[in-house]
């Protein structure tokens, strides 16, 4: 995850530096060496610390992934090449884990962006009694810790005996559903969406407040209805904040762990296991650090692929002024 984040962050900075050089470099006949600049010397300690901060864990993971390293067999740490990687990829949990990760990230993103846009548009549509309180209520799930949120949903809502949904089902004469056993992935998607929808609402609501009211008024004078205003004015205005929401949420959703650990434990079978949980399972349940490191590197590669795609697709939205 670390390299993925640093990749997304370093791209705009690198672009700024290169454009600055192009603009400044032409009029100066004698270019000063970069090393003669005292700033380089002064900045170097923090750069070195940050580099070590990133490179040491990555290097250790790389090293562990190439040796046999099982905590149950101490001392047998011989070099095994890429064996850990082949075992991890051919593991029966890898394919469901990767699919579940994609399903989880994709559906939570879809739910939070679509409902986030609709709810924030509803809040901005008109003045009504207690709007400030409604805003606070809508954002409040974001301040609940993931473990606590998962436990609320597990014990108070999804539980087939004491849960609210069970009581609702019984009220209508239906058999209560054991959500976490029969629809494990759907339940986790609901829990994670409940936690991340407030974030989308927060970002999109503040973005919507910066929409130029005069444009809206002009559109209304030209005879545009509320739906036309929403589609042609509000939604294009929200393109950039939506890109921000998608990027930040993807980074965090790829590593969802606490919700799965406290509710379903990845089960039944591999039905709700994602890659983060699979790596935890290898390292701290089966004590195979080597294979877990291989899995961690595969997850880093997948996160970087996602980051590159997102930067290519959405990053232009952030840097270019339309």
């Amino acid at each position, binding site marked *: 995850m670390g390299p993925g984040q640093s990749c997304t962050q370093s791209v705009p900075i690198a672009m700024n530096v290169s454009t600055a050089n192009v603009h400044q470099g032409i009029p100066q006949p004698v270019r000063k060496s970069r090393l003669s600049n005292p700033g380089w010397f002064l900045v170097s300690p923090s750069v070195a610390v940050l580099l070590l901060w990133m490179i040491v864990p990555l290097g250790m993971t790389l090293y562990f992934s190439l040796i046999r390293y099982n905590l149950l067999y101490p001392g047998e740490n011989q070099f095994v090449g890429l064996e850990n990687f082949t075992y991890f990829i051919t593991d029966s949990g890898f394919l469901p884990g990767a699919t579940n990760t994609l399903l989880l990230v994709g559906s939570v993103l879809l739910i939070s962006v679509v409902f986030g846009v609709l*709810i924030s548009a*509803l*809040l901005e*549509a*008109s*003045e*009504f*009694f*207690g*709007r400030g*309180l*409604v805003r606070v*209520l*809508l954002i*409040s*799930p974001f301040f*609940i810790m993931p473990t*606590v*949120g998962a436990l*609320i*949903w597990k014990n*108070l*809502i999804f539980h087939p*005996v*004491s849960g*609210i949904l*069970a*009581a609702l089902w019984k009220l209508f004469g239906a058999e209560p559903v054991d959500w976490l056993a029969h629809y494990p992935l759907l339940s986790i998607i609901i829990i994670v969406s*409940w936690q991340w*929808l*407030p974030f989308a609402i927060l970002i999109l609501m503040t973005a919507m407040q910066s929409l130029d009211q005069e444009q809206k008024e002009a559109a209304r004078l030209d005879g545009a209805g509320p739906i036309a205003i929403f589609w042609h004015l509000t939604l294009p205005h929200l393109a950039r904040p939506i890109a921000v929401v998608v990027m930040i949420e993807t980074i965090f959703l790829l590593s969802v762990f606490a919700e799965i650990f406290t509710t379903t434990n990845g089960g039944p079978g591999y039905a709700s296991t994602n890659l983060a949980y699979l790596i935890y399972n290898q390292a701290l349940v089966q004590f195979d650090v080597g294979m877990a490191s291989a899995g961690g590197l595969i997850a880093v590669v997948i996160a970087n692929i996602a980051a590159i795609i997102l930067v290519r697709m959405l990053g232009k939205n952030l840097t270019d002024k339309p």
Partner: protein
Amino acid sequence: MTLQQSRRLQSLLLGTLAWAIAILIFFPIFWMVLTSFKSEIDAFAWNSVVISFSATALAMLIAATPSVMSLPDLARHLPCASTAIVLSLMESSDGCRSMLCIAMCSTSTEKR
């Protein structure tokens, strides 16, 4: 319907919808807070909601019958009734719950 009336109606409808969504999203946290006041056995009992709501409705009926039944009269009891519901949801025993609701609603009528 004048323009102002239609705008007020629109604001009312959108406000109600927004409140409904906000309450739906906030409900798990609210429920967690309520459950934190209950004993372990009561935490497994869902019927506290049924009892407290029906007891409050009954109490409002009893309290409002002597006077002329009118909507503004009932509306005057609403703050008291909602307090009664919240308080009785926190209570543990069922009999205590309905007694509390009736007591609160009748005191609010007497003060009037």
